[in-house]
């Protein structure tokens, strides 16, 4: 029995850092946010103790921000996944293994420079002297991209592709290549093999990558601020505004709570959907 108690202590010690992190940096702040969300704005801004549902009742005033986030974040995630899949596929199945690591590192390379700097570059690329001016040469005149939802989506695909490729790559890489042969052997054309075997088995990777990108996009404010120019407004921007401009902390807290709840809901629904579509044991491993 001595040994058993001993191992329990070790388990507790190993869990302690994560536990402390979880309680102090996640649970407690969430409680604070929840408490604040029922408070009132102090006269000069900030928080004043109160108990009111006004902040929640006022949520429709940010309806457009919720709408933008809830349409553009999933759409951006989908487009990123569509763009990332062929990259991961070519890397995992069509590339000489000795080049794979190098190419993967190159895909991650943009992360070595500042995100803001890269968005600045896109501001110029998508501005009227950038891509639209080139398109004008082939007859597509007066195309305005910057400060539109399209620009935000382009930025999302560009910015989050490096996060989407590795999980898909991993699931494709560990995919048993004999399954592809088995499929061909049973008469499936390469295209059917892709949709019947490769894609379903890469789904856990797609799910992981999408989750990662979706969560980041849902909370993003820099991307919409820079490439949306204050016109494509996300919940993240509304929060920045409420905390860093209009100083309405309780309302900001209520918007945060709403965002957390929406995220929780969509992610659980999504996970449930993905789990129902993949072999449960495999999905659990990813």
């Amino acid at each position, binding site marked *: 029995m001595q040994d058993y108690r001993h191992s329990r202590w070790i388990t507790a010690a190993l869990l302690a850092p994560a536990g402390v992190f979880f309680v102090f940096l996640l649970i407690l702040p969430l409680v604070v946010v929840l408490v604040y969300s029922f408070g009132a704005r102090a006269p000069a801004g900030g928080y004043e103790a109160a108990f009111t549902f006004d902040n929640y009742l006022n949520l429709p005033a940010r309806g457009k921000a919720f709408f933008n986030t809830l349409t553009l974040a999933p759409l951006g995630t989908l487009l990123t996944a569509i763009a990332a899949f062929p990259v991961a596929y070519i890397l995992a199945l069509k590339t000489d293994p000795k080049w794979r690591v190098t190419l993967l590192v190159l895909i991650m390379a943009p992360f070595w420079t500042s995100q803001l700097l890269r968005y600045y570059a896109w501001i110029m690329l998508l501005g009227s002297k950038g891509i639209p001016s080139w398109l004008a040469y082939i007859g597509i005149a007066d195309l305005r991209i910057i400060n539109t939802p399209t620009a935000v989506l382009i930025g999302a695909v560009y910015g989050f592709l490096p996060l989407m490729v590795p999980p898909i790559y991993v699931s494709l890489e560990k995919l048993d290549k004999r399954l592809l042969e088995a499929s061909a052997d049973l008469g499936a054309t390469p295209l059917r093999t892709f949709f019947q075997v490769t894609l*379903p088995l890469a789904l856990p990777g797609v799910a992981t990558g999408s989750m990662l990108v979706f969560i980041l996009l849902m909370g993003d404010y820099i991307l919409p601020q820079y490439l949306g120019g204050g016109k494509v407004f996300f919940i993240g921007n509304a929060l920045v505004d409420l905390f860093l401009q209009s100083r309405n902390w309780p309302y900001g807290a209520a918007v945060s709570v709403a965002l957390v709840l929406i995220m929780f809901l969509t992610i659980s629904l999504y996970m449930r959907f993905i789990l129902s579509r993949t072999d449960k044991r495999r999905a659990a491993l990813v």
Partner: protein
Amino acid sequence: MKQVVIEFRKVSKRFGDIAAVIDNNLAVEQGEFLSILGPSGCGKTTSLRMMAGFEQPTSGEVFIRGEKVTGVPAYRRPVNMVFQHYALFPHLSIADNVSYGLRQRSPRPSAGEITKSVDEALDMVRLGGFGKRRTYELSGGQQQRVALARALINRPAVLLLDEPLAALDRKLRREMQVELQNLQRTVGITFLLVTHDQEEALSMSDRVCVMREGRVVQTGSPRDLYDTPINRYVAEFVGKSNFFSAASGNVTSVRPELIDIAARRKDLPQGLAIRTDGRVLNRIFLGEQTEYRIASDELGEFTVVAPRKAEHLSGTFNIGDSISAGWRPEHARLLPDN
């Protein structure tokens, strides 16, 4: 002569500098159970993959049912394969695995037809009622049978089996050998099995093709190969044998069970060509037979297998005992030493 289902004509396959298959002229006959036997790297798996269409020959032609299929991809060949580690689709149920081939057909069979065929195929491999299960819920032997059902449901011209029993334990392997043989007789489909296990090849096949370093060394019935191997390599690979060096690069091969032993020379049977005396170095009791390792001054060391049934004549021996041994002239074969 029987009809040929798959034929290789001077097929060679190179991977870079390595020649995996050289000038292979294999012919598989309709309805037979043929095994390709050889150690790893002998080219047997590459040959199989060229039949399936996963690899294309560097030179030479492949024919299936008399039709040239060189260059035709796997999904358009009327053959099916049972993979070494089964390669069942983990995201599909057992029934969906088995029906996979039918669902690729065009026109696609009706749902009712598919269900009926799947049930039949699963019954055939004694897995009736397993259709709804997932692959990981099945044992190795059961997965093996699913793989068989998945391939056989398509009624292929040839069923290709790539070391199908290698992943099973010894007892299960024995059972599956019998089952495979029965299955082959029942369905009447040509089986082509690739293995490195001589016992497997000899016990199941109508014919065995021994390969070595990319080339076919000898093809024949198991008994032919055992009794009349064309060289030391085949004799060594098919069964066990004693080799005694002979003149000009040849060896004399004598199967251990064909050597007679006795306590004294005079007790040996009549008509033996060779007689020698020696000592028992080692003895292994195997139940139905006993294996002796004998050292003789003239011939060196050799192995003798004495059946239990003959013990009343020869007696039993202990390590260190003096012993006499000999064999009939027709039991010694002069073979090229590779």
